[in-house]
């Protein structure tokens, strides 16, 4: 085995490896198991002579995989996939397949083919050919294929153990591929078997579907494919692709053949075991056992085979898994099973997707499918880019009409219009699933969290209308008597309109006389279309005095700017900058509707160890400064003149802002206080009897003697210990209490931090966090580079729409209940989310649990009611309604999930978990939950198939890759250069993120700038986050919502550099640039417009970082190439996929 591996990896991969190793190996290591499954397929092939055909594909894959890359296997798998694709897309003919693949892919394809050929020879099947031709070839190859698998497996296993080594990875990959191939193979097998397993037919379909998806990943069809393809296949393609691309690989390819040989060998084992193994991943070992013999034939592997066998079992973690299953799998039934399984996958997806995916028809032909692949793109593991592209293409054009219950909206990455016809726009609410299990048992079984991500004040594109304001008069909004739900489109009017039955609790309530209206013949109120609350999903009520604090209508809110004027702040120029900016910014305070001027009053405070309040009353000739040194017992020294109308006090304010920097220009005070600053703002608002927002600009750890004084407790040694959680917890409970007071007063705190060292974001952030505020952090703030970013954030933060003194409550149909909430807010009881301030970017994630049964007929309803004070001081209620379907079949659940939302929930859940559990535990829990979700699907929804096959629900096929990104994020797996503050900061950020933000945050967008069409407005097509997809000759842009990196390859054309940076050579590019120089040429314009466009899409201004290839900063950049193995130990996508697969198999066995 080892030999095989080496051979495989070594030569061929050697070159490719660099990239691949990093990425794939680890993942594969984990996945080696999957490989096993493939082997199983192989086994199938083996066992079922008739079905050999299917086998071939397997063999094919393996062979392909081997040849293609170090991760030969993967290549094989890819190839296998490719074949499929090819089949589908083009004529099965081998030749056809290769060419289709992209230039880059071609090589691999070719290789693969070549391999196949070899494989064919050796394995017979290898299916590579087989895959293409699958049906026919399969039989003959079967035997051969079987052996190959074994060899592969063995290799995988061995590699598996040493995950670190590239080879291993590859092996794993291979294994994966095998699995995938198996999957793909299965279809054929299915076909072959078709007769045997009833499913077969469907299977084939699925198979094709599966393939298509993969191909889709390459091309459009993906969706259908994705289901079946599940992980296994994709990875291979991906691998292959990279290899192909890499020039080095090419040479490698030659070697691949040998690898193929190996592959075959691996298959063989599988084949032997395959069938059985198919069931469980583990079977592989068995396969291997079986394989050995085959392996021998295939390759040198023969010796290895045995060892491989052993190796397989023991070696890779897989082994463990494999171990047990193998035995079982071996049995012929296994074959069927396998077939079924493979079919199952096929089927599973098909049924679900059946309707949705046009692919289905293709499936019919699937066997032929090998043809499907248009191109022979090696990417075969699910590609986020592909999924995003597909969704964009499929759903971006038509408006999303919300009238239908339980409709899954387009992805967040897709631009679409929303037409509100009774349900809230997905911009307001997104759910993890739009089809809720009827019973808690189902929910528990599936482990799919039921959650809604709510952004109550979301900004709508100009084309969509804002929620209408409804005034129900003095008696206030019409509500259900019992559950107090607000009037909404789902309320049933009965008795001719005299009463209505609550859609949430079924209680019948009298319609107030002033609200009475007759019903038409359909039972609808005659004024249905006249009243937003009857026809729309989102609308606002004007609140009456009963909804106000102290039964008094609120005063207009106030903004208080609190500026740190300690030495650091002054010296860095920050104070001057802020003051300058405020002068103009104050004219842009949020206004209500078309009001002439903002009702918001402003106040100013500066502070270091003491606080300085300013009296800026309009009647004064000069502002007055009032120093409060009694920080132990904070109070507001003045009332009149502190909070003023900007227009009235314009000159005084201007004078103040002019003088602040001067006054403190010579300060030597380095110590600051913090809690008293918040207290001061709070007291000021209390005194003024209004809600408001504090903008605090702070630079250092507050060590001055005062309440809330902090000490430096940063200790990196705590990382990865049980005490790590303390780094996320506040140092003192003082801030929690303070936050509580702030919330009670409606005092929202926005914190701008400019630290030069540790300042304990975890503690300082408590109040902003609990009051619904934001935190902005500019580490090592430098005027030249960071001012633009800071000012943009500040402008946006000041100007953005915000509600104050908000209380949100989510009501649900009887049967489920909102049980848990995530976000920046405070809760004094279990149902009401209280926020001192809620702006248009803040999101609250709500989790639901069953407390009873739901019915399929009535579905499940959510009503989110947000009571808040508008920026003009108007008290309002914003209502969002959403209706969901309910299901009794798990398959329905899996078909209506939204992975992005799921990840949003999981990330928030995990990020909260780190407060109470060791990070390791949190990570394991995440992995486990996802494994359960997928295992449940596999068990209940996918048609039976080889255990070695990784089958993912179409809707969740990106779950592993995204989850891996979450696991690798700084909070859960910090690298050496990530500070404690960074982690706390990110934790805070993520907690309030909406789905779009988490999506790009965890899986950054990587755009090849050099591919951009300078003549169009469109963005260049994104590529996957992996280093191997970067070309030295190109410039790339990567954005994750916080940063924008511009990566410049060493071989970029000089003219491009000149055009973009205005310097003549690569070496002259300064990475100190914080903006791109403004140059008058199409390329520069295009790039800058892209950057501007991206900035415009995010709620925060992203930091622009120029990264030169092979420069120091590249380390930082690579951190964001999330499909690769990360320096901090995060698994590559492929490795993780393998691992996931292993977990799933463990669960299934």
């Amino acid at each position: 085995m080892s030999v095989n591996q080496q051979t495989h990896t070594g030569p061929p991969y050697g070159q490719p490896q660099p990239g691949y190793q990093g990425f794939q190996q680890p993942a594969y290591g984990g996945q080696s198991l999957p490989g096993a499954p493939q082997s199983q397929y192989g086994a199938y092939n083996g066992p079922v002579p008739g079905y050999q055909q299917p086998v071939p594909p397997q063999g094919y894959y393996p062979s392909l995989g081997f040849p293609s890359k170090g991760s030969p296997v993967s290549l094989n798998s890819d190839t296998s996939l490719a074949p499929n694709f090819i089949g589908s897309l083009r004529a099965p003919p081998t030749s056809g397949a290769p060419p289709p693949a992209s230039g880059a892919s071609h090589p691999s394809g070719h290789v693969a083919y070549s391999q196949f050929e070899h494989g064919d020879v050796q394995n017979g099947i290898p299916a590579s050919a087989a895959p293409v031709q699958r049906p026919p070839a399969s039989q003959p190859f079967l035997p051969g294929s079987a052996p190959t698998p074994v060899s592969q497996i063995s290799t995988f296993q061995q590699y598996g153990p040493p995950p670190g080594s590239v080879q291993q990875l590859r092996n794993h990959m291979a294994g994966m591929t095998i699995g995938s191939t198996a999957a793909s193979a299965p279809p054929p097998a299915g076909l072959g078997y078709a007769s045997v397993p009833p499913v077969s037919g469907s299977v084939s379909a699925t198979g094709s579907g599966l393939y298509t998806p993969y191909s889709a990943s390459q091309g459009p069809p993906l969706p259908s494919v994705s289901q079946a393809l599940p992980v296994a296949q994709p990875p291979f393609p991906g691998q292959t692709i990279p290899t192909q691309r890499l020039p080095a690989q090419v040479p490698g390819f030659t070697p691949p053949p040998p690898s193929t040989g190996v592959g075959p060998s691996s298959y063989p084992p599988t084949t032997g075991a395959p069938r059985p193994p198919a069931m469980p991943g583990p079977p592989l070992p068995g396969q291997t056992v079986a394989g050995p013999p085959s392996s021998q034939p295939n390759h040198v592997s023969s010796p290895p085979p045995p060892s491989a066998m052993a190796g397989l079992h023991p070696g890779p973690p897989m082994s463990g898994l494999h171990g047990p299953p193998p035995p079982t799998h071996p049995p012929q039934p296994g074959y069927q099973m396998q077939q079924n399984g493979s079919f199952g996958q096929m089927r599973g997806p098909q049924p679900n997707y059946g309707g949705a995916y046009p692919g289905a028809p293709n499936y019919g032909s699937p066997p032929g499918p090998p043809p499907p692949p248009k191109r022979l793109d090696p990417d075969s593991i699910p590609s986020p880019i592909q999924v995003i592209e597909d969704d964009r293409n499929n759903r971006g054009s038509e408006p999303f009409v919300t009238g239908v219950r339980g409709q899954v909206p387009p992805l967040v990455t897709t631009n679409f219009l929303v037409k509100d016809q009774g349900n809230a726009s997905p911009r307001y609410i997104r759910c993890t699933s739009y089809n809720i299990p009827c019973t808690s048992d189902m929910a528990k079984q599936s482990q799919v969290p039921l959650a809604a991500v709510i952004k109550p004040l979301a900004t709508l594109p100009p084309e969509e209308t804002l929620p209408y304001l409804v005034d129900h008069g003095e008696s206030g909004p019409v509500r259900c008597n019992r559950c107090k739900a607000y009037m909404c489109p789902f309320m049933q009017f009965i008795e001719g309109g005299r009463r209505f039955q609550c859609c949430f609790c079924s209680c019948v309530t009298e319609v107030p006389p002033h609200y009475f209206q007759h019903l038409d013949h359909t039972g609808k109120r005659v004024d249905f279309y006249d009243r937003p609350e009857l026809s729309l999903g989102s609308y606002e009520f004007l609140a009456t005095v009963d909804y106000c604090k102290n039964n008094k209508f609120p005063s207009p809110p106030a903004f208080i700017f609190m500026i740190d004027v300690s030495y650091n702040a002054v010296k860095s120029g920050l104070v001057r900058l802020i003051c300058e900016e405020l002068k103009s910014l104050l004219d842009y305070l949020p206004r209500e509707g078309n009001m002439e001027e903002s009702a918001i009053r402003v106040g100013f405070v500066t502070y270091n160890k003491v606080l300085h309040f300013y009296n800026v009353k309009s009647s004064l000739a000069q502002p007055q400064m009032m120093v409060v040194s009694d920080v132990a017992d904070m109070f507001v020294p003045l009332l009149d003149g502190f909070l003023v109308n900007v227009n009235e006090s314009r000159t005084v304010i201007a004078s103040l802002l002019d003088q602040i920097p001067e006054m403190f220009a010579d300060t030597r005070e380095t110590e600051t206080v913090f809690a008293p600053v918040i207290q001061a703002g709070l007291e000021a608002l209390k005194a003024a009897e209004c809600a408001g927002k504090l903008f605090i600009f702070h630079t250092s750890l507050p060590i001055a003697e005062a309440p809330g004084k902090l000490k430096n407790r940063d200790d990196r040694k705590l990382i990865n210990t049980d005490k790590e959680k303390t780094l996320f917890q506040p140092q003192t409970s003082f801030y929690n209490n303070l936050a509580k007071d702030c919330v009670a007063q409606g005092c929202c705190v926005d914190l701008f931090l400019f630290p030069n060292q540790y300042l304990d974001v975890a503690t300082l952030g408590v109040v902003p966090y609990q009051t619904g505020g934001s935190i902005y952090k500019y580490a090592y703030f430098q005027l030249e580079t960071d001012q633009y970013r800071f000012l943009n954030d500040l402008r946006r933060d000041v100007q953005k729409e915000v509600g104050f003194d908000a209380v949100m409550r989510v009501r649900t149909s009887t049967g489920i209940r909102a049980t848990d909430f995530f976000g920046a807010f405070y809760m004094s009881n279990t149902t009401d989310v209280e926020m001192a301030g809620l702006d248009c970017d803040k999101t609250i994630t709500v989790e639901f649990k069953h407390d009873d049964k739901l019915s399929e007929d009535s579905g499940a309803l959510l009503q989110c009611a947000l009571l808040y004070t508008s920026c003009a001081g108007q008290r309002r209620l914003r209502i969002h309604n959403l209706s969901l379907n309910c299901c009794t079949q798990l398959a329905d659940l899996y078909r209506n999930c939204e992975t992005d939302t799921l990840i949003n929930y999981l990330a928030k859940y995990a990020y909260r978990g780190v407060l109470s559990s060791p990070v390791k535990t949190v990570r394991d829990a995440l992995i486990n939950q996802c494994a359960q979700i997928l295992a449940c699907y596999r068990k209940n929804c996918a048609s039976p198939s080889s255990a070695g096959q990784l089958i993912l629900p179409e809707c969740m096929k990106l779950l592993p890759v995204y989850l891996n990104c979450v696991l690798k994020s700084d909070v859960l797996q910090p690298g050496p250069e990530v500070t404690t503050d960074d982690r706390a900061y990110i934790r805070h950020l993520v907690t309030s993120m909406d789905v779009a933000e988490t999506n790009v945050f965890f899986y950054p967008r990587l755009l090849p700038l050099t591919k951009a069409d300078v003549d169009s407005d469109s963005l260049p097509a994104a590529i996957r986050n992996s280093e191997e997809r970067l070309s030295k000759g190109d410039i790339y842009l990567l954005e994750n919502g916080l940063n924008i990196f511009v990566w410049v390859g060493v071989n970029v054309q000089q003219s491009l550099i000149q055009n973009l940076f205005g310097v003549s050579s690569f070496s002259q590019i300064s990475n100190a640039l914080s903006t791109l120089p403004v140059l008058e040429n199409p390329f520069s314009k295009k790039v800058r417009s892209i950057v501007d466009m991206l900035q415009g899409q995010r709620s925060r201004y992203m930091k622009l970082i120029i990264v030169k290839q092979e420069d120091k900063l590249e380390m930082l950049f690579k951190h964001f190439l999330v499909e690769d193995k990360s320096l901090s130990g995060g698994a590559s996508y492929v490795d993780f996929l393998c691992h996931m697969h292993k977990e799933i198999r463990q669960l299934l066995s």
Partner: protein
Amino acid sequence: MATYLEFIQQNEERDGVRFSWNVWPSSRLEATRMVVPLACLLTPLKERLDLPPVQYEPVLCSRPTCKAVLNPLCQVDYRAKLWACNFCFQRNQFPPAYAGISEVNQPAELMPQFSTIEYIVQRGPQTPLIFLYVVDTCLEEEDLQALKESLQMSLSLLPPDALVGLITFGRMVQVHELSCEGISKSYVFRGTKDLTAKQIQDMLGLSRPAVPMQQGRPLQTPEQPVISSRFLQPVHKIDMNLTDLLGELQRDPWPVTQGKRPLRSTGVALSIAVGLLEGTFPNTGARIMLFTGGPPTQGPGMVVGDELKTPIRSWHDIEKDNARFMKKATKHYETLANRSAANGHCIDIYACALDQTGLLEMKCCANLTGGHMVMGDSFNTSLFKQTFQRVFSKGYNGEFRMAFGANLDVKTSRELKIAGAIGPCMSLNAKGPCVSENELGIGGTSQWKICSLDPSTTLAIYFEVVNQHNAPIPQGGRGAVQFVTHYQHSSTQKRIRVTTIARNWADAQTQLQHIEAAFDQEAAAVLMARLGVYRAESEEGPDVLRWLDRQLIRLCQKFGQYNKDDPNSFRLSESFSLYPQFIFHLRRSPFLQVFNNSPDESSYYRHHFARQDLTQSLIMIQPILYAYSFHGPPEPVLLDSSSILPDRILLMDTFFQIVIYLGETIAQWQKAGYQDMPEYENFKHLLQAPLDDAQEILQTRFPMPRYIHTEHGGSQARFLLSKVNPSQTHNNLYAWGQESGAPILTDDVSLQVFMDHLKKLAVSSAS
């Protein structure tokens, strides 16, 4: 007698001293039988036009426990260049500078006419005077405006190099930084929280001197109190700044809801003022000037809650022990007063409000530190404006009539001991051989601190004769007392004024007539009154009256001439004749009677009584009444209801009030407008005469008296009617209808009745 009167007057003019007895009984026993204690009224800084200060250090007795200053009473051996201390008899060498001394070449301090001499000495750095304004902003707009104007005006009256500071308070307390350009800056403190001096200094950022100290330049710190510069600035530098600042002063912006008093943090404001000066200028002359327009209503030192429905404490409440904040508040202000006094800073209180402002609780601030206490109805009255202006008045030589940080040291010859002092001073607890165990007033010490004094500030100092009966004093022996007053002159010079006086001893048994003849009944009345008022501060009013009565009876028994049990035979010698009358009026005075006075008024009156010189004190005890009529030139008339005649204009000066009262006829004439007719110009002159005289009094009096112009039957006539001896009342009907005066509707006894009783008791053998 004339001689004694002259002697007394001469002594007073030269030394500012008036003794109750000018011949002293030579034994302890006899002295106690004299009833009126041996005591004196000392005006340490009495203005002396003819006293040029000498520019050298005084020569001190070398005995450490004595340290008396060389004076004309000392025996000098010109040949040996020795002098003998006349207090401890220590023989002292003259210092080298006195080498040329001889009988014909005497230093000033040895000349008899220099029994009072003033030295200018060079000690320590000269620090400018400090004026720290503590201003209440919880005022009506008009009041605040007036106050602001007064304050702005005062800036021009200050010595240009004086340091000024400003603290304003209302609900919060603001310490204004004066050195800044542009934005005016102030430090704000919560009005409800008492802070220690340390905390205050930390919060004001005054604790920095530690830094230079560490850098090894400790010597410079005392000379360059740089730290304080932010809050206390030379007037000439920040004149404009401060004027603007005062101009922009807003009323306390915190809303006062219906039925509430504004929240006023007087206690904390004072505390901060004291803390500020304590930290920056200890032992330097400084005035904290508190301007308040109402009672403290929150924080330490609060006198009344902010609920208007609970009225501020009255004497009735205090007697019923129903003044819940009083004790605590008093304690707070006492602590402050003591701290302030310890640092030589004085606290003035200018309280202008129609209701009480808590002077009762705050009185010690002024009393212990020698500060002024001014009470008025509003800052927008001439009473306040002129009084305040007069604080900065200058003496004949163009110097401010104020001195700071005085330290009064009293030395006595062996036959005498010091029993105590009553006046605006604080004990320095200097024990010594001449300190008596029997305390009268503030005793137990031979030194007192007077943080602020002016030329009229007068202390009563009580002595005890300790010479035993069996140790007769040699004939012609004299007792001596030396008063040594170190103080900071308004020019910031350090000065020492030394007054040495001597009196003859006399054996009371054999020379009682000498002693009797040398009795100063005016001084005695004031000294007894001070004792009485001092006791009244701590005792129940009736007890004090009883004590006074008893003392009077005993005095009459001792010095009256009478036959036992025959009241009609009772006679008093001329030197005692007025004394009972003084006591009669004292008993009726607001110093001892609280009826009809609020606690604040009582405190106010008592405050002034305890620091004015003899003449003013007598006016307070027995107001002066002048009559103006066509019957003759203006004349002083009896303070008696019989003096109130229809054709007279009366001018009464009670020190606190100047009342001009038009008799019934005069008032009618005035109404008829005769004064405007040329033919009745004399009537116009008659009307004008008292006004001019009143004006004269008003010009010199501090504080400005309340000026009352009334007429027969006018409501304000009560001021007059309550003061005059009610010789005619509704009870003695025989007076009804007579033309001899106006009956007073009162049950108070008249002087006649009082005297009758006194005689009866004095001659009674039973007592």
